[in-house]
């Protein structure tokens, strides 16, 4: 008798103390998780399914008209963005990690700021700044007495212009990952290279860069996924790519089948990038040099070089964040708020909060299902649903619209034939469709965040709690919830901000008369009312800073070799 003394334990107490079989309950959990994950995977499956639908005529038509232009433009855009993000991301990551120069500590996190700036916002800000009537060209004309035809000025609203805009806000992906790789590389590898006779520059090219290659490729793949999925920038600059093509074919021409075909091709491209990303993440394991870290001895730069390094790090932050944010602030302060601004904020916040809560709840459900009864079916469904994050918003919209419309029509038919009542469209064109698209698109973020924070609760902690007499429910509240609550909050915030920024899916799926800040900013900008677009845009940028803070704190905490090991 361990507790209560003789007689306190009723007959059969020992038997009752054995853990109850839990199969039934976790079985339910697994089924529920599978259904939810499968539902979230529907849009991706629908769009990819279009590849197997014979569409001979549509294809011939597309191929003879727009397709070559879409392919060429998208590829060109991706190429320039890749070059820009590689150069900016890797250079700044190396400088900030390996060299000592004034301002380095600030740049460590400031380099991330452009992440808060959606590409379509920076695009119209620079248009306002650099257009013929903008302050820069006007200033030049005034200063030099030029006239309209006296000088050449780069055209912002062009394909290269769009690439620069995208490059300026996407380079942080490459920066974050290559910086992590540079920090993780055992300094020993670099030092060994030095003792084997290579100078610092040669060591960078022959050791540091090849070692960071998987991380750099991962960062580039992420940046390119955003690039090919971008809608706002290219639409605003009138560059024809797949996303604008889908939008125009669907909304403008009403040709849903053709739009779906385009969406399917774009999804294939994104999935190819996704494969590259996964593959190089896997490679990174082999490029791991050491479990032992030494605090970096940063090379102190001579004044001239230090100034160069400072400028090299300053330019991306200045051009990617400070200048556009400043211009937005200037516009916003000088323009009265649009009449329905606060209603706009309200509707944006409510969809963003709703989507965040649903995404986190679903994320928790999936993470627990995977933990308690890992099964093949659930695993596959989760993985397919996670692709949603890589799928461009325009594609996601198509993938949601099709099944919802199908469902509405079938229901309508059924009701009419049996009851003689028409139900019309009860799901498509409602906030439900919009929320569904958001959750399907951003589920991967919440799931991954929840999963990794749940991973900190080791199975042995569960066992320890159970052996100390805690019931599963108590375990959930006393151990799991306190340990993962931070992760849940992070997940909710990340989804919240992504929903706030989301443009193309909202544009296509929103109910009639429903607006978000992103849509409003985009519409105003498209109407050349740049100054009025500033206030909603600024709200999005401010919200976008939240994940930047979360990110930079996470990076600071996970830094290997942070403590002196000597």
């Amino acid at each position, binding site marked *: 008798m361990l507790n209560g003394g003789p007689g306190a334990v009723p007959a059969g107490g020992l038997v009752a103390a054995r853990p109850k079989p839990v199969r039934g309950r976790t079985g339910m959990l697994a089924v529920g998780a599978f259904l939810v994950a499968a539902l979230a995977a529907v849009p991706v499956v629908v769009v990819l399914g279009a590849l197997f639908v014979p569409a001979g005529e549509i294809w011939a038509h597309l191929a003879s008209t727009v397709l070559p232009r879409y392919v060429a433009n998208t590829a060109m855009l991706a190429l320039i963005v890749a070059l820009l993000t590689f150069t900016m991301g890797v250079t700044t990551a190396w400088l900030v990690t390996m060299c000592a120069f004034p301002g380095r500590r600030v740049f460590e996190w400031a380099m991330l700021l452009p992440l808060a700036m959606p590409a379509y916002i920076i695009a119209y800000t620079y248009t306002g700044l650099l257009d013929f009537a903008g302050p820069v060209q006007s200033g030049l004309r005034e200063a030099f007495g030029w006239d309209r035809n006296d000088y050449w000025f780069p055209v912002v609203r062009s394909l290269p212009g769009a690439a620069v805009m995208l490059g300026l806000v996407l380079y942080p992906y490459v920066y974050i990952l290559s910086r992590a790789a540079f920090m993780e590389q055992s300094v020993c590898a670099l030092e060994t290279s030095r003792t*084997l*006779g290579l100078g*610092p520059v040669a060591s960078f090219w*022959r050791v540091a860069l090849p070692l960071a290659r998987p991380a750099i490729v991962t960062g580039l793949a992420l940046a390119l996924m955003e690039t090919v999925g971008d809608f706002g920038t290219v639409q605003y600059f009138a560059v024809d790519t797949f996303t604008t093509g889908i939008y125009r074919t669907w909304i403008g021409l009403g040709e849903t089948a053709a739009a779906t075909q385009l969406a399917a091709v774009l999804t294939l491209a994104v999935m190819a990038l996704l494969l590259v990303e996964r593959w190089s993440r896997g490679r990174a*394991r082999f490029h791991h*040099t050491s479990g032992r870290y030494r605090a970096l*001895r940063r090379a102190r730069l001579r004044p001239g070089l230090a100034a160069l390094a400072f400028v090299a790090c300053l330019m991306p932050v200045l051009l990617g964040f400070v200048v556009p944010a400043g211009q937005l602030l200037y516009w916003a302060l000088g323009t009265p708020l649009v009449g329905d601004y606060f209603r706009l904020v309200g509707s944006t916040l409510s969809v963003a909060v709703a989507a965040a809560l649903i995404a986190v709840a679903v994320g928790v459900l999936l993470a627990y299902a995977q933990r308690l009864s890992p099964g093949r079916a659930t695993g596959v469904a989760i993985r397919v649903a996670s692709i949603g994050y890589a799928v461009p918003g325009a594609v996601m919209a198509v993938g949601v619209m099709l099944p919802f419309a199908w469902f509405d029509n079938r229901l309508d038919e059924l009701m009419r034939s049996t009851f003689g009542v028409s139900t019309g469209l009860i799901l498509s064109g409602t906030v439900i469709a919009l929320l569904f698209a958001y959750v399907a698109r951003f589920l991967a973020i919440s799931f991954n965040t929840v999963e990794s924070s749940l991973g900190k609760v080791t199975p042995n902690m569960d066992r320890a709690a159970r052996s100390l007499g805690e019931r599963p429910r108590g375990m959930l509240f006393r151990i799991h919830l306190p340990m993962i609550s931070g992760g849940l909050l992070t997940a909710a915030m990340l989804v919240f901000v992504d929903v706030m920024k989301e443009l193309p899916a909202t544009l296509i799926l929103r109910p009639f008369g429903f607006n978000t800040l992103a849509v409003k900013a985009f519409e105003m900008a498209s109407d050349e009312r740049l100054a009025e677009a500033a206030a909603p845009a600024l709200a999005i940028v401010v919200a976008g800073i939240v994940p930047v803070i979360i990110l930079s704190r996470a990076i600071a905490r996970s830094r290997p070799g942070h403590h002196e090991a000597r």
Partner: protein
Amino acid sequence: MDALRFEGVSHAYDTGPSLLGIDLAVRDGEILCLLGPSGSGKSTLLRVAAGLEVPSEGRVLIDGRTVAEDGRSLPPEERNVGLVFQDYALFPHLTVLDNIAFGLKDMGRQERRARARDILGRVGLADYADRYPHALSGGEQQRVALARALAPKPHLMLMDEPFSGLDAGLRDTVRDATLELLRAEHATTLIVTHDPEEAMLTADRIALMRAGRVVQVGTPDELYRHPNSDFVARFFSQVNEIRGAVVAGHVETRIGRFCVSDDSLADGEQAQILLRPEAIGWQPPDGGVEATVLSSRSMGAETVTRLSLADGTVLTARMRERPLARGSRVQLTVASDEAFVFPAP
């Protein structure tokens, strides 16, 4: 000529001084171990030799050539030293052969590969040339790291805890093979370790460091048998400590009389007597110092016995006899000539 000389070398990190006026010479072809607790500066000294740290004061010479002086320092790539890290730091993106050929310069591609293959054969990994480091075991990685460092025929080999990443069983074999190769190459070697047993198994001479200074230099036997301070005596094994006052050049204690060998202790001063466990033995009761057995455990070849004197002093003895029964009483014998007498702190 000395292969490596430190003359009054000092160095500081942002966090504080790490080396305080080191004078040390490594002879040609010698294997010298830098031994010391963590934070004693041994790794820093190795890094100064490699050119990875710049000394703030003093001079460093390799083969008679000054490589660091007055805060200026020849960069590592111009020193021709071989470096082996605890984690080996193999280049994961290169094959084993390319790793080894990495430092070979001023020769044709064919010649480089031939030289790399040759040295790879000598560490017994000829069949591994085209593998990648992640496919090798820890011991194999260590051998590749060694081969890579030796390939350019360095003036000096520097090894930072080269064996501590290996399992205990593997360590002895790898160490023996490494030493054999270093001797065959007649490579002057500086090895950093925190493990006194490893230093004794490896070194021709040991330099024991503490708080940025070299405390004592000598052969393993010299340091073990003739430590110049209680720090050195305590570093190599557990010791028994007895205190007493000096009277007429001797210290009288309850386990015997100990001679003060040098003049560091004047009459009336407090002394500490340090005795290694193997200096204590026993015999059947016949009127010597009595002790009670607290515990006695066989470690295989030896027996470790904890003994309690009448006044509660506890001593540890280590000897070849079989274990004694707990609580039994024995007479102690003390090899007083093996005792170390130092001023009490």
